[in-house]
């Protein structure tokens, strides 16, 4: 860990101002950042501790939305009565991630900013365009087991590793961001994370001097909510693939199908075409296959991770079958 100045700002705006410096990083739970600082993947000169600045509350808004403060821990979010009752896909996604020890520390905002687990990103003696622009991608010609099959670029095939944001993407949640000039903006979770393109170092749309203040969940909707995570170990492992689904039926037809996928791309993957395809249809194995085809029509494997394409297709089918109570 490189030496850094540890600062505890007096206010959120102060924190945002301090974070404007490109050599400064905000720290909340620290479960990902400290890991990366020990490896010198992250080497901030200044650490801005944003804990104890409020933002630890979950509040019910009169319009039926639910606001989760950026510093609400994963544990607090997963255990909140409203989230358990109205947004079980989110509670389930959070509980499927990491461990109780880590969830007790990890925060909502921090988890959205979690960086990739790519083995080449976390090893500073290997090439990585995300960590060191222009150094190359070790994974494309190397071991790409964890890596993306959708939305990749020739620069980077890393995945976003989290679970929580996948459920938030299915829920169409919104991220609230405060800038150093006290301006605020709101970005849909679905647009918060970036694809690698030719700027692989960019995980998300946050600009220097911007801080996440909250995530708002839309009013609850009818339907079955499922979070399905496929992993090598039965616990404490990142997803090979995961599916967050909110599926509602009207009679024997699908009336709502909000889906998002983890482990497949540089961001929680949301493809609006799936909803268009599924809504109004009778559930069937053929329909689920069609959905899989659509989801993965542009998928590209890199050898080691080719399996993710059939795995994602099968996991999607399993989730749709469960949600629609269809035998396949």
């Amino acid at each position, binding site marked *: 860990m490189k030496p850094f100045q540890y600062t505890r700002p007096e206010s959120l705006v102060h924190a945002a101002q301090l974070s404007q410096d490109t050599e400064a990083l905000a720290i909340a739970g620290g479960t990902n950042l400290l890991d990366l600082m020990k490896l010198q993947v992250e080497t901030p000169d200044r650490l801005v501790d944003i804990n104890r600045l409020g933002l630890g509350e979950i509040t019910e808004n009169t319009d039926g939305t639910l606001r989760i403060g950026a510093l609400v821990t994963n544990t607090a979010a997963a255990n909140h009565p409203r989230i358990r009752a109205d947004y079980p896909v989110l509670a389930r996604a959070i509980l499927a991630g990491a461990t109780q020890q880590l969830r007790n520390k990890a925060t909502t905002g921090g988890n959205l900013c979690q960086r990739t687990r790519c083995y080449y990103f976390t090893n500073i003696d290997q090439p990585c365009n995300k960590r060191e622009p222009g150094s190359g991608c070790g994974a494309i010609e190397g071991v790409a087991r964890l890596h993306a099959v959708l939305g990749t670029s020739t620069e980077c095939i890393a995945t976003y590793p989290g679970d929580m944001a996948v459920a938030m993407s299915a829920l169409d949640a919104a991220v609230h961001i405060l800038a150093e000039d006290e301006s605020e903006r709101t970005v849909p979770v679905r647009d918060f994370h970036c694809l690698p393109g030719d700027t692989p170092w960019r995980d998300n749309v946050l600009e220097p001097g911007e801080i996440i203040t909250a995530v708002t969940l839309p009013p609850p909707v009818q339907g079955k909510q499922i979070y399905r995570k496929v992993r090598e170990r039965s616990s404490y492992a990142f997803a090979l693939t995961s599916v967050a689904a909110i599926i509602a039926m009207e009679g024997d037809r699908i009336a709502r199908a909000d889906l998002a996928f983890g482990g497949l791309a540089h961001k929680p993957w949301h493809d609006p075409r799936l909803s268009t395809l599924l809504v109004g249809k009778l559930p069937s194995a053929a329909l689920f296959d069609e959905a899989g085809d659509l989801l993965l029509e542009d998928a590209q494997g890199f050898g080691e991770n080719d399996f993710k394409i059939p795995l994602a297709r*099968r996991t999607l089918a399993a989730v749709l079958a469960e949600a629609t109570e269809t035998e396949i």
Partner: protein
Amino acid sequence: MTAHFKQDGPVESNRLDGMKQGVIGKALPRVEGLAKVTGTAPYAAEYQAANMAEGVLVTATITRGTVSSIDTQSVLAMPGVLAVIQDSRMTTRAAQGTAGQAPQQEPQTVSYWGQPIALVVAETFEQARDAAKQLTITYDAEEGAPLDPQAVESEAKEGQTVNQGDLAHAMAEAAHSVDVTIDTEGHASAAMEPHAAIAQWEGDKLTLYASLQMLNYNIAELADALGIEEEDVRLRAPYVGGGFGSKLGISEEAVAAAIAAKQLDRPVRVVMSRQQVFQCIMRRSETHQRLRLACDDDGRLTGFGHDALVSNLPGEAFAEPVLQSSHFLYGGDNRSLSLNVARIHRMTAGSVRAPGEAVGMPALEVAMDQLAEEAGIDPVELRLRNIPERNPEEDLPFSSHKLAECLRQGAEAFGWDSGPRTPRQHKEGEWWIGTGMASAARVHNVSEAKVRVSLIADGTALVRTDMTDIGTGTYTILAQIVGEMLGLPVDKVMVELGDTQNPRGPGSGGSWGAASIGSAAFMACHALRKTLAERVGTSEEELSLKDGIANSGPSLVELLDGKELSELGHYEPGDIADDYTASGFGAFFAQVRVNRFTGEARVDRMLGAFGFGRVLNAKTARSQCLGGITWSIGAALTESLMFDPNDGHLVNCDLAEYHMPVHRDIGEVEVLMVEERDPVASPIQAKGIGELGMCGGAAAIANAIYNACGARLHHFPMTPDRILAALPD
């Protein structure tokens, strides 16, 4: 006085069974248990020393070549940095088990990515860790180092090739045959305590606190590396946070700490990071195996072939002994076995729990399952029909043989259904359920051992040796053996381990610890009993000791009469090893579920039945078996080292991405100990048990996966992607 015994023949007297204390074999809790559960047991990095400096190893970022320069000035000006050590005596690999001499030194020569090349020492850990990352190094890299074991010409491992009869002919003529190729990926020991050392000099005398398994060899390895005499070295390792082979030999941090402490004239601590433990200690080699089995209509083997390719660095003598139990487990007159080593530039390959059988047995037992299916014979029955009377290659008798009992008792306890075995017969929701089984075998070893047993004037006993307890239960079984022999409850027996000021034990490794050090303690006690018997006026055979009283008369305190009585027990394996084949045997039974959509496999329950001679402590022995079964589950489903194809570096070098099992991966586990006495194995009739529990277990899971869903896998670990790829349409 020394009580020396060299075992040239069976020891049938079974003296331990004639003792009166009644502690031997009992399921007693560990004597050091409270220290462990309260965090008061000290491990290597936890000793306090005044003015201690902290060292962090720097590792190479090329695969092969030389370090042309290290710019020490790049870090010496950093706060707290004391020195950059680049001494040619530093070691670049861990020593192989029982080497007894320094491993490869001269760290400026690089032969694998991640090899230690220097040590940065600073006042604090944070300062040293940062400086180690900032150190500027230039290399003269040598391109083209071979990295793929299957892409190089391999060499035959000496003494492993067997050719008996005509296997090709037997395969051609067989009523049923199987010819399969099976791959296993590399494994890491990944003991929970990282390798660590604290070195402290007083003049020319070095004391090193370390996390090592075999101090009796490590002291010679360290002295050799440093160019000093063994007499000037004291190693201490009373608590070792797991080893599993990774701490058999002296490792890089210990030698570096000793050199730095001497140079700086102050104590130095070096703890490897978890990533360094993964990258520069030991890997179990991946294996590429071919199994050929031929049998007649009754399922009796007529041909047995097992060929294996493993890998290691150039110059390393160790080759994963894949065929070890294949030589004798099953009969078959026509035999062909071979072991080849590919020389590649990945990190050192060495011993990881149950070297050889851990990967050889699962391959063999998958092939046996396929043969059972081909022949239409129940897999338990197929194995029962093929247990040889004598070692089929060397025509030696077995010291004892409990495979049949383990198979029968295990099958009964598990509720094995010997009916037809068609896959995909049981479904629960999304899951297919199936069962499978496999045999277990692990060669038995013993090693020379010394221990001093003293009767103190107050009537307690003190046991001293440099033997280690790496979690195996050495403290407790020694207290039980000595307590049983000398008629003392275990709380009257103090055991001091892990200090080379004490007599040399056998070290912990190869599952030989308990039988070897236990036999030495037994010999010492036997001699003490003789002296006590004389004092009582009876013979040793007639002497009965219980709760500190001899023959219901005088107490030990009275017999000792204020003076300590001490014996050095010295056990040596003798010629008997040439006269018998000695092995632990067992059987595994598993029930698994496989998700029909995702290919995820989970072990619902697993049972292991094992015969390994005398059980010294039913609790710790069972725990050893549980540990082995847990490792079987890891080897079956999740554990795999992944190497970069371009520079050979270990890619998944941490505990997040190297998937050792977590709690939730382990379903119901049951252990059945099929007790026996093996008078050939050791004077205490015990055999090794630490490794047996993972010698074949992965195959029981593979066979259960096949039974569950019809996917016949020939590649371990059986991750969801491999299962999906193997599913029949």
